[in-house]
C-alpha cells in the first residue's frame, strides 16, 4: 500500500519571502545553504518541520519543482529525496537552533537551549541574545543564560569571553561551574576571573544547600512535632507512657486510606478526601485511646513500668490486627493535586509542596492543642487534675472522665500525625515503629510536660539530624543524636524546659 500524505506548504500571500524560499531548498547546494540561512533568520515557525526534514533527509523534491516532507517510508512517483552537503548541514544546525529558540512552545525553546549548551559555538550568540530578550519563562531563561555564557566562553574574542564568564558567574548551577572549570586550561590569561566566578557560584551553591538543609530539617522537625505532640499530652501531662502511640499514628494513616477508598466512589468528595480524613482519623484514634485508658491503663496508675509493658502489648495487637485486616504490603495514598509538585524559591531552592503543607499542619495542630489546653473548660480541668488530683476532685471535677478525655485527646493527635505521615511515608502496619523512639527522644529532650519544649525539641532534633546527615550518613547521624541527647540529659536531667516548683517532684 502506498501510504502517502503530502504537505503542500504553499500558504497564501502572508509571507512572500517564505513561499519563495521554500522551493529553493531543493536547489543546488549553494542555493540550499542560502535558503536555509534566510529561513532561519526569518523566524517563521512553519519552516521548522521543513528544515528538520531536510536535516533528517526526509525532504522530497517533487516533480513540479516544489518540496514536501516525506510521510511514512514510501516515496511517491517522480519525487526524490533532497541531498545536502556539509556546508548546508552547518547552516541547518544554526537555522534550526534559531528557529527553535523562537518557537512559541516553551519545551522546544528549552531543548534548543540545551542543544546549544551541548555544542557551544560563538555563532549562536546573536540568536541567543535575541531570544533571551523575549523570554518570559524562568526555567527556559535559566538554561538560555547558561547556553549564552557557554557560547560566549567558546568564542575567540576576549571581550566576549569575559562577558561569558560574567554570565556564568551570575548563575548558580553546578553546570556553569563545570563549564568554567573546563575552560580554565584553555584560557590561562583569564584565570583570575574564572576563579572569581567559580567562587561566586560556590557561595551561591552553598547558600542554596544550607537553605535546603534547613527546610529538610524543618520538615523532619514538623513530622517529629506531630508524632511527639500526642505523647507530650499523654506522657507529659498524665505521666502515662504509651508505647502504642506509634500504632495510633499508623491507625491514623490507615483511616486516611479508608476515607480515600470511600471517597473514590463519590466524585464530588474526591478532592476533599484528605481534609475529610482529618476528623475521621482524630475520632477513630481518640475512641481507641479512651477505650484503652478506661479498660486497661486505669488499673495501673502509679506503676509506670507495668503501664509501659501493657501499652506495648496493645501496640503489638493493634499492629498485627491491622496487618491481618489490610495486609502487610504498603497501601497507596494519593495526594490531592494542590499538595503535589515543588515550589522553586528565588535562588533555586526547591521545596516539595506536601512537606511545606505538613509544616503548616504541624504548627496548626500545635496551636490547636495549646488553645485546647489554655482556653477551654476541658483544658482547665485537665490542668487542675495534673496539679492536684484530690483537690480537683473535691471541687467537683470528675477526674476519671478527665483522664479518659486527656488520653483520648493525646491519641487523637497521634491520629492527625498519621494523616500527615500518609502523605510522605509508606502506609504499612509498621509505620509507627520508625517514629516512636524519635518522638520519645523529642519529649525527653524538650522536657516532659511542656508543649513549648516539644516544639523546640522537635525542630532542634530535626535540624541537627539533617545537618549531621551529609557528614555522618543517615545512621551515624541518628546514633550521634542519641549520644548527644544522653549527654544533654547529664546536664539537664529534666529536659530543656523543666517544670519548676512542686510539679517537678512528680
Amino acid at each position, binding site marked *: 500500500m502506498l501510504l502517502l500524505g503530502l504537505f503542500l506548504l504553499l500558504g497564501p500571500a502572508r509571507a512572500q519571502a517564505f513561499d519563495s524560499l521554500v522551493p529553493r531548498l531543493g536547489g543546488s547546494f549553494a542555493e540550499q545553504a542560502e535558503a536555509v540561512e534566510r529561513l532561519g533568520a526569518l523566524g517563521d515557525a512553519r519552516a521548522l518541520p521543513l528544515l528538520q526534514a531536510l536535516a533528517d533527509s526526509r525532504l522530497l523534491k517533487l516533480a513540479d519543482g516544489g518540496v514536501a516532507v516525506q510521510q511514512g517510508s514510501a516515496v511517491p512517483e517522480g519525487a526524490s529525496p533532497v541531498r545536502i552537503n556539509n556546508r548546508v548541514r552547518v547552516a541547518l544546525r544554526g537555522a534550526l537552533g534559531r528557529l527553535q529558540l523562537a518557537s512559541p512552545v516553551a519545551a522546544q525553546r528549552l531543548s534548543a537551549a540545551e542543544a546549544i549548551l551541548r555544542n557551544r559555538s560563538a555563532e549562536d550568540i546573536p540568536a541567543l541574545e535575541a531570544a533571551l530578550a523575549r523570554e518570559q519563562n524562568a526555567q527556559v531563561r535559566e538554561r538560555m543564560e547558561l547556553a549564552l555564557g557557554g557560547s560566549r566562553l567558546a568564542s575567540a574574542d576576549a571581550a566576549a569571553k569575559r562577558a561569558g564568564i560574567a554570565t556564568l558567574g551570575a548563575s548558580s548551577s553546578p553546570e556553569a561551574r563545570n563549564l568554567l572549570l573546563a575552560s580554565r586550561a584553555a584560557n590561562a590569561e583569564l584565570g583570575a576571573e574564572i576563579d572569581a566566578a567559580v567562587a561566586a557560584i560556590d557561595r551561591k551553591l552553598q547558600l542554596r544547600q544550607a537553605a535546603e538543609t534547613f527546610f529538610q530539617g524543618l520538615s523532619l522537625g514538623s513530622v517529629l512535632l506531630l508524632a511527639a505532640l500526642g505523647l507530650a499530652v499523654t506522657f507529659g501531662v498524665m505521666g502515662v507512657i504509651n508505647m502504642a502511640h506509634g500504632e495510633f499514628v499508623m491507625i491514623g494513616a490507615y483511616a486516611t486510606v479508608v476515607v480515600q477508598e470511600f471517597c473514590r466512589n463519590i466524585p464530588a468528595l474526591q478532592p476533599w478526601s484528605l481534609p475529610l480524613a482529618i476528623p475521621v482519623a482524630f475520632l477513630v484514634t481518640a475512641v481507641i485511646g479512651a477505650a484503652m485508658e478506661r479498660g486497661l491503663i486505669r488499673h495501673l496508675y502509679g506503676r509506670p513500668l507495668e503501664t509501659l*509493658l501493657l501499652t506495648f502489648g496493645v501496640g503489638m495487637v493493634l499492629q498485627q490486627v491491622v496487618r491481618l485486616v489490610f495486609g502487610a504490603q504498603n497501601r497507596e495514598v494519593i495526594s490531592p493535586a494542590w499538595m503535589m509538585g515543588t515550589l522553586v524559591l528565588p535562588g533555586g531552592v526547591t521545596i516539595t509542596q506536601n512537606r511545606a503543607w505538613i509544616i503548616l499542619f504541624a504548627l496548626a495542630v500545635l496551636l490547636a492543642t495549646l488553645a485546647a489546653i489554655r482556653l477551654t473548660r476541658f483544658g482547665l480541668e485537665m490542668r487542675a487534675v495534673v496539679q492536684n488530683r484530690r483537690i480537683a476532685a473535691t471541687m467537683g471535677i470528675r477526674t476519671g472522665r478527665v483522664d479518659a478525655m486527656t488520653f483520648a485527646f493525646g491519641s487523637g493527635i497521634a491520629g492527625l500525625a498519621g494523616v500527615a505521615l500518609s502523605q510522605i511515608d509508606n502506609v504499612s502496619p509498621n509505620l509507627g515503629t520508625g517514629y516512636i523512639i524519635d518522638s520519645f527522644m523529642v519529649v525527653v529532650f524538650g522536657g516532659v510536660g511542656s508543649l513549648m519544649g516539644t516544639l523546640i525539641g522537635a525542630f532542634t532534633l530535626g535540624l541537627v539530624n539533617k545537618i549531621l546527615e551529609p557528614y555522618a550518613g543517615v545512621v551515624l547521624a541518628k546514633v550521634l543524636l542519641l549520644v548527644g541527647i544522653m549527654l544533654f540529659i547529664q546536664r539537664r536531667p529534666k529536659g530543656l524546659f523543666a517544670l519548676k516548683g512542686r510539679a517537678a517532684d512528680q
Partner: protein
Amino acid sequence: MMTRRIVLLVAVLLLALLPVLNALPSSNPLHVSDFLVSIIGKWICYAILALALDLAWGYAGILSLGHGAFFALGGYAIGMHLMRLIGPRGVYGHPVLPDFMVFLGYRELPWFWLGFDWFPFAFLMALVVPGLLALVVGYLAFRSRITGVYLSIITQALTYALMLAFFRNDMGFGGNNGFTDFKELLGLPLNSGTTRAILFYAALVSLVVVFLLCSALTRTKYGRVLTAIRDAESRVRFLGYSVTQHKLFVFVLSAMIAGLAGALYVPLVGIINPGEFSPGNSIEAVVWVAFGGRGTLVGAVLGAFSVNALKTWLTSVAPDLWLIALGCLFVAVPLLLPKGLVGLVRRRKGKA
C-alpha cells in the same frame, strides 16, 4: 526449701538427659529428635538472658528494654571467631578474609577483628564488650539519676541505634546478612550431633552456674541493698549507700550474662544478624521475665521456657496469631498476674 531444690535438680537432670536420648537410634521409643534438642538448647540460652534481665529488673528495678543488644553483641563476638575459623573454606577461598569482606572489597582485616581467631580472646570479648557498653551507658544514666521509664526508653533507643549501625555494610560486621555458614568451633565440626550435644551441655552448665551465681548474689547484703533500691531508691540513697555504684555493678554484670547467653546461642543456631538487635527481641525477653515472675530467678527461667514453648507451638499452628498472643500476654500479665506464674503458685500454696 528442700523440695524446691529437689524439683530444680530433677529438672536439670531431665534436660541433661535430652542429648543422651537423642543419641539413641530413631527406632527407640525414647528417641528425641535433633530439632527438639537444638530448640531446647536455644531456650536454655534464652533462659540465661532472662536471668540477666531479671537480675537487673526484678532485683534492682532497672527495666532495660535493650538487653537484646548485649545478647547480640556477645553473639557477634563469637560469630567473629567462627567467621575467622572458616578460613580458606569460604566461597571466595580467601585465606584470611571472611566472604563478605572479599565481596565488599576489603584488602586486609580491620583492626577490630584482630585477635578474634583465638577462642579465649573472642570468648572474653563476648563478655567484655557488652559489659563495657553497659558500663558507659549505665554510668551516664545512673549518675544523672535517669530512672524508670526514662531509662527504659534510653536503652530501647540504644538497641535501635545499634541495629541501624549493624545493618550497614561498612561497619565491617557483614551488614544485614550478618554471619553464617560457620564450619567448626574448637576443632569440632558444627553440624555434627556430638557438637550439638556438647554445645547443649555448655549452655546447660552455664545456666546452672549463672543461676547459682545470681541466687548467691541476691542473698548477700549487696543483693539486699539492690532490692531496697528497687523499692525505695531515695531512701537507700539517704541512708548513705551509693545507689549509682550498686546499680552500675548489677547492670554491668547483667549485661555480661546476657553477652554469655548470646555467645552460647550463636554456635547453636549457626547464624547471627542485626535482627537480633531489634527492640522487639529485647521486649520479648521482658515478657518472659514478667510472665514467669520477676524478682524470682526460677520465674525468669520458667518464663523463658514457657513463653518460647508457646511461641514455637503458635508459630507453627497459627503464625498470624503469635504477635497477638504475645501482645495479650503483655496486657494480661500486669493486670492479672502481677507476680507471674511463680506468684500464682505461691498464692495457691498460701491458701492451702
